[in-house]
């Protein structure tokens, strides 16, 4: 019985409920006019509403709104689409959850007005069932938002990883790895991998690792630099570390870091000059008069 009541209201009151759902959102500032048009918002709401009605209709027979049932597949799909669309435009997780929950009260009002008072038990049961369903749907939306966000974060991390460790071919047989920001273990690993494979790809004999943009050098970072230089040497190349600021030089000495046989130069410019000398490359710059 309770599910049939819900279905009747969803079916008969479609127009007014849609309007009410939309206006609740407007009142609560959930329709973000800055992010999407009213027409778009309306069509999204209709799509969700119809998928919901379909699920409720399929549940009449069992008279139970089981959030785990298959009849909500359409609703889940619609939610996924709307969520993706909205998170992409910057709607927050909270706003999405509130958007789903906002359907409850207009529906309850109509349930109260339609269902006979003497049938108090049915009314309570209907409200219970519907609340449970909408809460589950809202939770599902939240999960969708979070997973959508996680995907974005993962993608950005990957992009940053690549951005942060480019390998540049400076000259024939000379490559440079300008490091920027902080160098944690994972990035250091990535840098080493990129650097070593670039030696093969670019047929490089000299690798200049420029740390001008590195914020701090602690023992770990220093270790990573030394290891990278050692690996470069094993492959038959030579590493030059450039861009050691006076402050970093002090820290490294205080940390007792032994840079051993590694060539270090104060600037990328000095390192490049040094590389030319090693490769016996004469560079002549002619200025047109």
């Amino acid at each position: 019985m309770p599910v049939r009541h819900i279905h009747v209201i969803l079916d008969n009151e479609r127009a007014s409920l849609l309007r009410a759902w939309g206006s609740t959102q407007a009142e609560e500032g959930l329709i973000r006019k800055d992010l999407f048009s009213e027409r778009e918002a309306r069509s999204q709401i209709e799509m969700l509403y119809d998928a919901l009605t379909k699920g409720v209709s399929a549940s009449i027979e069992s008279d139970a709104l089981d959030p785990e049932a298959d009849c909500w597949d359409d609703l889940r799909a619609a939610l996924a689409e709307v969520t993706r669309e909205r998170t992409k435009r910057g709607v927050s997780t909270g706003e999405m959850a509130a958007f789903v929950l906002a359907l409850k009260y207009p529906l309850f009002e109509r349930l109260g007005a339609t269902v006979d008072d003497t049938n108090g038990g049915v009314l309570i049961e209907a409200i219970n069932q519907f609340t449970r369903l909408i809460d589950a749907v809202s939770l599902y939306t939240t999960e969708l938002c979070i997973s959508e966000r996680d995907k974005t974060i993962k993608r950005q991390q990957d992009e940053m990883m690549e951005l942060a460790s480019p390998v540049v071919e400076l000259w024939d047989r000379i490559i440079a790895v300008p490091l920027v920001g902080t160098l944690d273990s994972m990035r250091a690993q990535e840098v080493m991998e990129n650097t070593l494979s670039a030696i093969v790809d670019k047929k490089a004999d000299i690798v200049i690792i420029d740390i001008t943009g590195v914020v701090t050098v602690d023992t770990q970072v220093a270790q990573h630099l030394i290891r990278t230089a050692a690996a470069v040497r094993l492959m038959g190349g030579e590493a030059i570390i450039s861009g050691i600021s006076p402050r970093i030089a002090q820290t490294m000495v205080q940390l007792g870091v032994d840079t051993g046989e590694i060539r270090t130069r104060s600037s990328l410019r000095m390192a490049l000059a040094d590389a030319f000398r090693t490769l016996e490359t004469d560079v002549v710059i002619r200025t047109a008069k």
Partner: protein
Amino acid sequence: MAQAAGLFMVDEIMLVAIDEDINDSDIVALQDRLSEEVYANDAQGIVIDISALEIVDTFVGRIIAQLAGIGILLDAPTYLVGMRPAVAMTLVELGMTLPSVKTARNLQHAVTRLRAAR
């Protein structure tokens, strides 16, 4: 003798090409063979090409260091060439930086440097 490594004399330089599927006893045997050949041919330098090796653990790393050590004692400077990036990274992490072994990017470079040093 299993042909797990090829030894070639080219213009007074001994070239050693190590095969992908070399095993522990082959590589130990290679020490004997190499020192004999270097001595017999009066080689002026040795180039060991390990580009076929996908894995170098501490055992193989130690043998390579010893090969180079033998070369130095027999007055034949030894170059290691063709180490793969993944192998270099792994060896460094194992703490084996082979400081006593000279390295070059490829055979050509090693031969050029050996010639220049003579």
